[in-house]
C-alpha cells in the first residue's frame, strides 16, 4: 500500500460532476445551506433559486454543483479550494468521502483517495476510507458534534469503528490522548464534557482530535475556522500546521477566506460555478492571477493592512478628492470610487487622542449626535449577573462612521442595541442630540424610533418570510404614522430603487432574493423612516467578499448623501478598517482602545488590539491584483 502511495497521488479527482435533482424548483443539497451568492442589481432574482449550489442546470431537473472538476494532491501536500458560496467547493470536498452516496445526488467521474475508488467502493470499503484514510473537519463545530454524548465517548466510538480490536478502555485512553494532543486542558476530565460545555475553539479542537484519532492520510477541512473568532482561528490553523508537520498528512482546505488559504496551503484551486477557474502554487495564484475572476475575487477582499480606500467617509462638505490613492489598495470590483479624505484632513486627525472627538463630517468639537457616558448593561435576574457592557463611553457625529470591533461575547451587539434603544441600559447615560434617552419609556421613545435604526446581521431571519419585501420596508413607515397610505407605497418603491433593487420587486418575498439583495432590503427598511443614525450589526459577515464590497459601498454612498451617522459593528477587522472614520476595540464589555482608524490599525496601543491584528491572516503578495 505504501508503494502504491508513492506512485499514485493521494487524491485523484478526474472529471468529477455532482448534480442535485431539482425538487419543486429548488435543488436538494446535502452540503447544507451554504451562504447565498450572487448579488447586485445586475443579478436579477431567479425565483426559487435557493440552494447551496446552483451552478447551472444540466439536463432535466438537475443542478450541477460541480462540473467536470479535476485535480490531484500528492501525499503530505496541502491544497486550498477557494470560491464564493455556491461555487461547489464544499460539494467537491464531500465527494472525496463519498458523502453524496444515498442522497439522490448524481455523481460522475472518478474520485480516488489513497488508492481506492470512492465512487465504486462497497459500503464497507467506503466506511473504512471515511476517517481511516480521509477524515473530515466541518465548519460549525457546535452542530457537528452530538449534543447528547460526552466528547470523549464520541471520539471513542469513531476510533473503534477503525480499530475493531481495541477495547473500550484502550479507545477511551486514545480519545484522551488525542484531546490532550490538540490542546484541550485537563483532557481526561474534559473528555466527559458535552459539546455545549466547550467553547467554539475547543469544539473545533475536539473535532480535529476525532480526525487525528483515526490517523488519516488526508484531512479534509471544510471552512474549519469560519465560525471562530480571529484569535481562535489563528490557534486552530496553527494546530493544523503543527499536526501536519508531525504526521505528514495531506490537507484539503475548503474556505471562502483567501487570507486563511494564503498561509496554510501549498496550492490553490479557485472554483466558480462548479468549475475550476484557476489552479497553481498559492503564491503564484495570489500574486499573479491569470484569470480575471481570480483578480476580481482578490480585489474584493477587504485588507486589514491597507488604508481605507473607497471612502464611506461621509463628509457632506468634504470635497471629492482625486482618485490618487495609495498603490495596491483594493477596491470594489468596479474600481475605486475616487473618493478619499484629503490628505490634509487625514494628517490633521492622524494624532490619536481619546479625549478629542474626531469627526469627519463636522468640525471637531461640534455638537455630537449621540453621546454615551459610562454605559453599562447587565443580564440575568438571580444569582451572578453577567455584565455584557461595562462603562462604555463614546460619541458620534452626523456623517461619521464609528467602527466597533471585537470577538464574540465582547458586548458589541449589546452596545449597538442600546444605542438604538432596543435594550435599556442598566447604568450610565445615553444622550441623543443632547437629550437623555437611556431611561425613557417606550411611549416617550416613540419620536426617537424613526431617527435611530438598525441593520441586522442575518438578512434571512431578520425579514419576515411571509411578508413581501415591500411590506417589510413599509412597516416602519406605518409605525411612524406620518405618511398617508398611498404615499407609503411610493416611498417604498423609491427606497427599493435607491438601494439598487427594482421598484417592481415590491411584491416579491425574501426567499426569492440572494443574501446581498436581502441585505439591501434590510438597509432600505432601516432607511425608510429617514433616520439620522443607523447601527449596522455585522451587516456583511454573512456575505461573500464581492457582495460585501457592494454593500459597503452602498452604505458609504447613503451616508454621504443623507449625512447619516453610522455605527458599524463587525468581527472582521479588515471590513471595519475599510468603512470607519474611527474605531473602538471592545473586549469583555469594555472599550480597550479607541481612536482614528488608521492610527489604531497602524500603531495599536493596547496589547489586545495588537493580538487581534496579529491574528488576522494576511493575503500577502496580492499587490499585483490591482
Amino acid at each position: 500500500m505504501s508503494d502504491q502511495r508513492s506512485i499514485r497521488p493521494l487524491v485523484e479527482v478526474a472529471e468529477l460532476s455532482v448534480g442535485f435533482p431539482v425538487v419543486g424548483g429548488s435543488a436538494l443539497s446535502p452540503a447544507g445551506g451554504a451562504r447565498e451568492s450572487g448579488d447586485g442589481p445586475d443579478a436579477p432574482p431567479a425565483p426559487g433559486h435557493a440552494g447551496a449550489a446552483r451552478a447551472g442546470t444540466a439536463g432535466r431537473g438537475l443542478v450541477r454543483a460541480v462540473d467536470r472538476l479535476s485535480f490531484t494532491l500528492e501525499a503530505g501536500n496541502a491544497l486550498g479550494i477557494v470560491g464564493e458560496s455556491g461555487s461547489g467547493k464544499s460539494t467537491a470536498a464531500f465527494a472525496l468521502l463519498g458523502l453524496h452516496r444515498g442522497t439522490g445526488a448524481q455523481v460522475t467521474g472518478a474520485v480516488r483517495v489513497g488508492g481506492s475508488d470512492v465512487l465504486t467502493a462497497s459500503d464497507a470499503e467506503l466506511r473504512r476510507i471515511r476517517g481511516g484514510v480521509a477524515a473530515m473537519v466541518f465548519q460549525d463545530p457546535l452542530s457537528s458534534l452530538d449534543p447528547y454524548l460526552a466528547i470523549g465517548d464520541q471520539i471513542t466510538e469513531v476510533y473503534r469503528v477503525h480499530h475493531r480490536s481495541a477495547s473500550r478502555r484502550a479507545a477511551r485512553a486514545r480519545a484522551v490522548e488525542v484531546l490532550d494532543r490538540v490542546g484541550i486542558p485537563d483532557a481526561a476530565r474534559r473528555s466527559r464534557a458535552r459539546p455545549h460545555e466547550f467553547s467554539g475553539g475547543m469544539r473545533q479542537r475536539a473535532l480535529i482530535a476525532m480526525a487525528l484519532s483515526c490517523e488519516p492520510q488526508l484531512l479534509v477541512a471544510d471552512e474549519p475556522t469560519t465560525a471562530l473568532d480571529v484569535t481562535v482561528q489563528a490557534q486552530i490553523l496553527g494546530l493544523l500546521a503543527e499536526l501536519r508537520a508531525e504526521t505528514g498528512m495531506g490537507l484539503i482546505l475548503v474556505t471562502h477566506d483567501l487570507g486563511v488559504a494564503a498561509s496554510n496551503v501549498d496550492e490553490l484551486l479557485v472554483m466558480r460555478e462548479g468549475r475550476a477557474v484557476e489552479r497553481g502554487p498559492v503564491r503564484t495564484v495570489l500574486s499573479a492571477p491569470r484569470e480575471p475572476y481570480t483578480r476580481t475575487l482578490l480585489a474584493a477582499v477587504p485588507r486589514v493592512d491597507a488604508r481605507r480606500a473607497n471612502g464611506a467617509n461621509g463628509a457632506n462638505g468634504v470635497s471629492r478628492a482625486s482618485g490618487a490613492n495609495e498603490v495596491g489598495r483594493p477596491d470594489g470590483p468596479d474600481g475605486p470610487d475616487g473618493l478619499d479624505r484629503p490628505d490634509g484632513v487625514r494628517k490633521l486627525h492622524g494624532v490619536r487622542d481619546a479625549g478629542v472627538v474626531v469627526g469627519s463630517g463636522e468640525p471637531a468639537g461640534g455638537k455630537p449626535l449621540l453621546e454615551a457616558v459610562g454605559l453599562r448593561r447587565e443580564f440575568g435576574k438571580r444569582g451572578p449577573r453577567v455584565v455584557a457592557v461595562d462603562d462604555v463611553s463614546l460619541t458620534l457625529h452626523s456623517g461619521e462612521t464609528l467602527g466597533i470591533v471585537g470577538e464574540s461575547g465582547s458586548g458589541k451587539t449589546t452596545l449597538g442595541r442600546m444605542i438604538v434603544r432596543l435594550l435599556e441600559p442598566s447604568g450610565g447615560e445615553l444622550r441623543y442630540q443632547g437629550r437623555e434617552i437611556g431611561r425613557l419609556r417606550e411611549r416617550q421613545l416613540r419620536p426617537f424610533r424613526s431617527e435611530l435604526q438598525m441593520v441586522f446581521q442575518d438578512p434571512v431571519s431578520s425579514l419576515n418570510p411571509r411578508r413581501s419585501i415591500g411590506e417589510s420596508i413599509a412597516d416602519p413607515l406605518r409605525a411612524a404614522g406620518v405618511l398617508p397610505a398611498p404615499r407609503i407605497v411610493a416611498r417604498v418603491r423609491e427606497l427599493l430603487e435607491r438601494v439598487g433593487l427594482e421598484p417592481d420587486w415590491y411584491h416579491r418575498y425574501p426567499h426569492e432574493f440572494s443574501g446581498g439583495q436581502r441585505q439591501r432590503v434590510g438597509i432600505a427598511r432601516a432607511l425608510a423612516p429617514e433616520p439620522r443614525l443607523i447601527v449596522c450589526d455585522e451587516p456583511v459577515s454573512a456575505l461573500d467578499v464581492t457582495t460585501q464590497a457592494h454593500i459597503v459601498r452602498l452604505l458609504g454612498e447613503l451616508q454621504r448623501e443623507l449625512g447619516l451617522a453610522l455605527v458599524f459593528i463587525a468581527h472582521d477587522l479588515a471590513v471595519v478598517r475599510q468603512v470607519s472614520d474611527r474605531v473602538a476595540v471592545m473586549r469583555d464589555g469594555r472599550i480597550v482602545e479607541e481612536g482614528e482608524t488608521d492610527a489604531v490599525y497602524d500603531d495599536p496601543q493596547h496589547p489586545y488590539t495588537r493580538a487581534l491584528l496579529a491574528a488576522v491572516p494576511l493575503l500577502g503578495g496580492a499587490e499585483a491584483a490591482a
Partner: protein
Amino acid sequence: MTSYVLRRAAGAVLVLFVLSVVVYAVFYAVPGDPAKLACGPRCNPAQIAQVRDQLQLDDPLYTRYWHFLQGLFAGHDYSTGTGVLHCNAPCFGLSYQNDQQVTELISQRLPVTASLGFGAMVLWLVLGIGTGLLSALRRGGTTERVLTWFTLAGTATPVFIIGLLLLMVFCAQLQWLPFPSYVPLTESPEQWAWNMLLPWIALALIEAAKYARLTRSSVLETLADDHIRTFRAYGVSERAIVGRHALRGALPPVIALSALDLGSIFGSAMLTETLFGLPGLGQLMVHAVRDIDLPVVVGVVLVTGAAVVIANIIADLLYAATDRRVTLT
C-alpha cells in the same frame, strides 16, 4: 434542582386549590337535587329534607367549602345517627350515596387506573417508537405507507369500537383471553397482566399513532442534523447512527410527552374502564357525576388533577435529564 421542584410543587398546590374551588362552584350551580338522588326513588319529601339536612346541603357555598378544607387538613367528624365517624385528614368527606369515605373509594380505584395507564404506556411507547423509527428509516417506501395507514386508523377509531372488536375476537370468538376483570397485581401478577392485556392494547393502539408520528418526525429531523453527517463521514455504520445518535436525539420529546399523557390517562380512561368493566377512577367519576355526589367528584378531580400536575413536573425533569443542555431554573 431542589428549589426548582419545590417551586413547581407550590405552583401545583395553587392549581389544585383553584381546581377545587371551581368544582365546588360548578356543582353548586348545577341543576338537580343530590339529596333526592342519594335518598332513592321511593323517598318522601320529609325523608329527602332529612337527608338534605344530614348532608348539610342547605349551608351556603362558602360554609361547605370551608368544611371541605377543614376535613382536608384536619379531618372531620360525621354523625351517622348511631355514633360518630371520624374521617382522618386528608378527608374528602363522605360519599352522598353510601356514606363511604371518599379517600377509601379512591384508594380502592387508584391501583386499577394506574395499572391500566402504566401498562398501556409501556405498550404504546414500544409500538409508537417502533413504528415511528421504522417509518423514518423506510421513508417514502411501502412500509412507511402501510405503517402510516395503520397508525392513522388506530387514532381515528374510537376506543369503544377497538375495544369491542378486541373483546369479540379474542374473548368471544377465539376465547384466548378471559373477559377482563380486575385482579390486583399483589394477588396474582400473572392474572393481573392477563386480564389487563386487552384494555392495554385498546388504549395503546389509540395513543401509539401520536408517538409514531412524533418519533418519525424527530428521528428524521435528527438524521438531517450536522452531527449525523460527522459520524457518517467517520465511517460509523448506519445502524449505529440511527440507534445511538438519531434515536438518542429523538427521544426527549417522546419521553416528556408520555409523562404528560400518562397523567391525563388518570382523568380520561373512563371509556376504556367502562367498556372493560374495570373499577377504576374513571368509572367512579362517571357514577359520581351522574349522582351529583359532590365529595366524590371533588376527590376524584383533585386526584386526577394532581396526577396531571405531577406528570407535568416529571416530564420537565425527564426532559432535563435526557437533554443535558437544559437547565431547570
